[in-house]
């Protein structure tokens, strides 16, 4: 068994991202050995049941909305709860933050990406998907700055290209990939 290049994968998305996130998650090997953290802006009409919906689509027991101080465990898919920012602490626990929205978003992808990068450094893989705002761009900058890897969904494959575009604009060194390319990338990097 070879070692994972990454210790955590985090995926940020907004409008038009849920379908793509599902494609990526479905492609993961059954017993992947790292935690996966989803930060997805929820449209007002898709309310609190998103974790159940994702679990059902993926055919797994649960997608966990972490609570404060919950230990981060490998092999679990986490989804940031509505109305809180999701952060990670040194020592690998989650913590929550109920401060004002950032760029009109709570959870904010920037806040989570930055805090994950600060703890997991070069072992971070962050993936930014479709969306109609600019969240995630600064966060990816931080991931790269800490030596981690940043992937952005190619704007032409995104239902809403604004978010990927904003991230590409300020981060010249991101990998720009179609969902299929990212699936391929993940299969090469994630071992079980």
């Amino acid at each position: 068994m070879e070692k994972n290049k990454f210790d955590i994968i985090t995926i940020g998305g907004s409008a038009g991202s849920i379908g793509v996130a599902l494609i990526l998650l479905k492609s993961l090997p059954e017993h992947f050995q790292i935690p996966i953290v989803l930060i997805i802006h929820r449209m007002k009409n898709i309310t609190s049941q998103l974790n159940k919906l994702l679990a059902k689509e993926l055919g797994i027991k649960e997608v966990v909305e972490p609570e404060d101080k919950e230990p981060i465990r490998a092999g679990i898919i986490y989804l940031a709860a509505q109305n809180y920012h999701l952060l990670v602490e040194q020592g690998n626990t989650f913590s929550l933050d109920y401060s004002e929205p950032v760029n009109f978003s709570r959870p904010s992808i920037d806040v989570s990406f930055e805090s994950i990068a600060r703890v997991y450094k070069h072992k971070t893989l962050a993936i930014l998907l479709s969306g109609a705002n600019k969240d995630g761009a600064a966060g990816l900058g931080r991931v790269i700055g800490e030596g981690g890897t940043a992937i952005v969904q190619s704007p032409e494959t995104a239902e809403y290209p604004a978010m990927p575009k904003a991230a590409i604009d300020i981060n010249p060194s991101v990998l720009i990939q179609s969902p299929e390319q990212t699936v391929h990338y993940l299969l090469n990097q994630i071992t079980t």
Partner: protein
Amino acid sequence: MDENNSIHIKELDEILQMLLHRYGYDFSNYTKASLLRRVNRFAKETDSATAYDLKYKLLNSEPIFQLFLQEVTVNVTELFRDPAYYKSLREKVLPVLASYPIIKIWHAGCSTGEEVFSMCIMLHEAGLLKRARIYATDINPANLEKARSGIIPLAHMKEYTTNYLKSGGKNDFADYYSARYDHAIINEELRSQVIFSQHNLVSDNVFNEFQFISCRNVMIYFDKQLQDRVLQLFYDSLSSLGFLTLGLKETLLFSVVKDKFNNIHKTTKIYRRKD
């Protein structure tokens, strides 16, 4: 652009040490990820380019420290926030509290009072307000001053009214406040049983015994060690079979007191002392 790069964790620790010595506030057990964000935001707002700049300003100006306190204590709050929580208070907690001749309540980390006013309204509707003695505390004097005035911004009143109705409220919400220009004042009678005072959960101790303690969205800013201290403090401040309520994403599951409480309503985080 990357605002988090100006102040690093080591520099943060030095600033916190200085604040403890200079002002007596100890933030060393606040969660680092969140605190680092707040402090960097504050550095930006005060045009402090380096940690040294910021430290210098904080050391030499008490008014700047007060603003700093305002920033790091995250004061966001709402009337009837999380209607489901208030609904289960109505159904599961108030009927029990009704059996006490004097009902003692503590809101720890009450911010500008919205949570307290919501409780007052519910106690009033249950006919319990006159028997209630409500202590509402916070670390931040500016919050307490606002809370004492009973004034809340009018901007979100529509949302608050919806929250109230969702929580099972049956009255005309507008009867509980009077609107003036851009703000509303909660009726004085509703606030008559409340005492607002300063209490720091980091350093202050038990000051009374309560049948109900609410501490919502406050301990998420504390590390595990400080959470455990505060939870022990709450346990010691509760009378037997007393209630403790937390924010929706908080839990006793990872704490030292987890075996001392029953979770009587899982999703709304209402706990009750076992003994």
